[in-house]
């Protein structure tokens, strides 16, 4: 028999998470990466994960980061896209090509959740499902998302999608749920096991290395050094949300 007095806080959190999983999804084992107490405890408050995207290295005709994200996180499969209106289709990461209206210069870059330090989506979420981990990753806890979409109203980057229909052929390591909101989670499960996000890896493989991933809090990390050496911008810098995703040569 468990001596209640000896139960640690972590045990209680674990049992609570397990209970809510059972209640909310009977018969289904959902592994909510990053959202559960166990995964949260892996997030290191001493780090802040971020991306630096070099638009000059990003090729307009390359879509490898988007494809890698789709495969890794199980969204936007051919079957899913055939069954749903394009306006309702998920879009965790998208490629944009921009033309500077004054100079005419054209650049391409991927846009995903900007993992803000002060995320409006987290502020407005009524249940706290939209959350920021200790290490700066912003994501949705699909177990307590009620599907109100207020976070989508609040996001200045159109980074979030609502699951409009039942999903078949789910990716086991990245479960998604009809009626909840989802977005880039910076591949939190990969980061938690010491790997880099799928988009970053794909961009390297394609020979562009346009996306640099690293710890913004570590002054010796490659990303911190690059941010020190080169001019970079944050999207919608006027809102002062301090995004963890920065762009250079945009």
């Amino acid at each position, binding site marked *: 028999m468990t001596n209640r007095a000896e139960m640690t806080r972590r045990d209680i959190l674990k049992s609570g998470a397990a209970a809510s999983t059972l209640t*909310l999804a009977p018969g289904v084992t959902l592994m909510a990466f990053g959202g559960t107490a166990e995964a949260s405890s892996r997030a290191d408050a001493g780090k802040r994960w971020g991306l630096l995207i070099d638009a000059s290295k990003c090729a*307009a005709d390359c879509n490898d980061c988007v494809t890698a994200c789709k495969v890794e996180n199980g969204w936007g499969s051919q079957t899913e896209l055939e*069954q*749903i*209106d394009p*306006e*309702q*289709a*998920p*879009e965790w990461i*998208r*490629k*944009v*090509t*921009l*033309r*500077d*209206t*004054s100079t005419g210069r*054209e650049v*391409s870059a991927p*846009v995903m959740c900007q993992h803000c330090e002060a995320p*409006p989506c*987290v*502020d*407005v*979420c*009524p*249940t*706290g499902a939209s959350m920021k981990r200790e290490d700066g990753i912003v994501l949705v806890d699909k177990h*307590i*998302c*009620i*599907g*109100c*979409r*207020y976070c*989508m*109203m*609040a*996001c*200045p*980057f*159109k980074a*979030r*999608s*609502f*699951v*409009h*229909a*039942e999903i078949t052929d789910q990716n086991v390591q990245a479960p998604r*749920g*009809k*009626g*909840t*909101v989802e977005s880039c989670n910076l591949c939190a499960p990969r980061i938690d096991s010491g790997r880099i996000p799928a988009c970053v890896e794909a961009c390297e493989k394609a020979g562009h290395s346009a996306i640099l991933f690293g710890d913004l809090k570590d002054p010796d990390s490659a990303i911190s050094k690059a941010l020190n050496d080169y001019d970079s911008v944050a*999207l*919608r810098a006027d*809102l002062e949300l301090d995004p963890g995703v920065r762009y250079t040569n945009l």
Partner: protein
Amino acid sequence: MAMEQTIYRELKATPGVWQIAALLLAFLAAAGGAWFYMEHHGHAVTGMTNQIVWGLPHVFAIFLIVAASGALNVASIGSVFGEKAYKPMGRFSSLLAITLLVGGLAIVVLDLGRADRLIVAMTTYNFSSVFAWNVLLYNGFVAVVAVYLVTQMMRALDYKWVRFAGFVAFLWRLALTTGTGSIFGWLVARPGYDAAIMAPMFIIMSFSFGLAIFILVTLTLLKLNDRIFGEELLKRLGRLLGVFASAVLYFALVFHLTNLYATEHGGYERFILMDGGIYTMLFWGVQVMLGGLIPIALVFLNPSRSSTILASILVVIGGFAQVYVIVIGGQAYPLEIFPGYEVIEGFHEGVVSPYTPSIWELMLGLGGVALALFAAGVGAKVLRVLPTNLSDGNLAAKG
């Protein structure tokens, strides 16, 4: 001066009452079916998208929630501001305020992606969310107004308690509409929302929409039981509606003027006021003309029983259009994510998002209206909230 004693009696079940009840139940059944269909297939069967994330159901819901706090004004004018002529209408005004709110909330809840997780919304609060505050404000409103209604119905109670409960309810309704307006006003991301004036504008909108609905519903119920609604009293309510409708226009004017002054909002203003298609049409044609200038002209230039009724109907239509323009127009206008750049390729970047509501959304929205009206009718049937006589006797007593 002799004032007629107000006698409150339950609504009698005449054939007309049964017919309207049956009609409302049919709408409720249709809404139930629509909800079940949307719940089963997901929001894919609606017109809502990842761009227009809140659609027609939200327009209905916000309209009803805003009107709810406004419907309470008649009671407040009576017991807080001491206008004797309004006192006989106080009970039903309180009841209608509760049912309109419940109707609106039902729509919001049934539109959730996971309506089955309502218990999560009730038990897990993120206190930095305006939405979470609103959950408390809405539940609190029902409780506060219910207490206010009970105090009004207790003849033996010292009147100071009615005044006190009315005062608390009045403050609460101001907070509630502030919260509803702030759902939009505090969204910095979208140029059509981000404006502090949203909260006071929603308050004045509630005064106008709520009074219009109160006039129409009360008149219908009294008529169904052949009870009198005095012409002078109606004209007086009509004039008040005219004042409120003018104030709504004024706030809309200030909102747009402020936006026009700020260059960064110029694009949004151009969209709503000039080349926004359906939104421009709804703004000028329905909100300003049909729901503003015409009813104002009616009640002030040609005050009569029919002018008040027509003005009330027009204010409801105009108000609905106004909420539609705010909620949907604000989302349809593109987000400015890359200032200084033209987007050549992307995902609905820099273009106006289309929205065509589905029949299911319409059915759900109308179901919320039906729920509010049905509940108000049932309330009037079982409680003594409607006076047997709303003749002009009380106006005369006031002089």
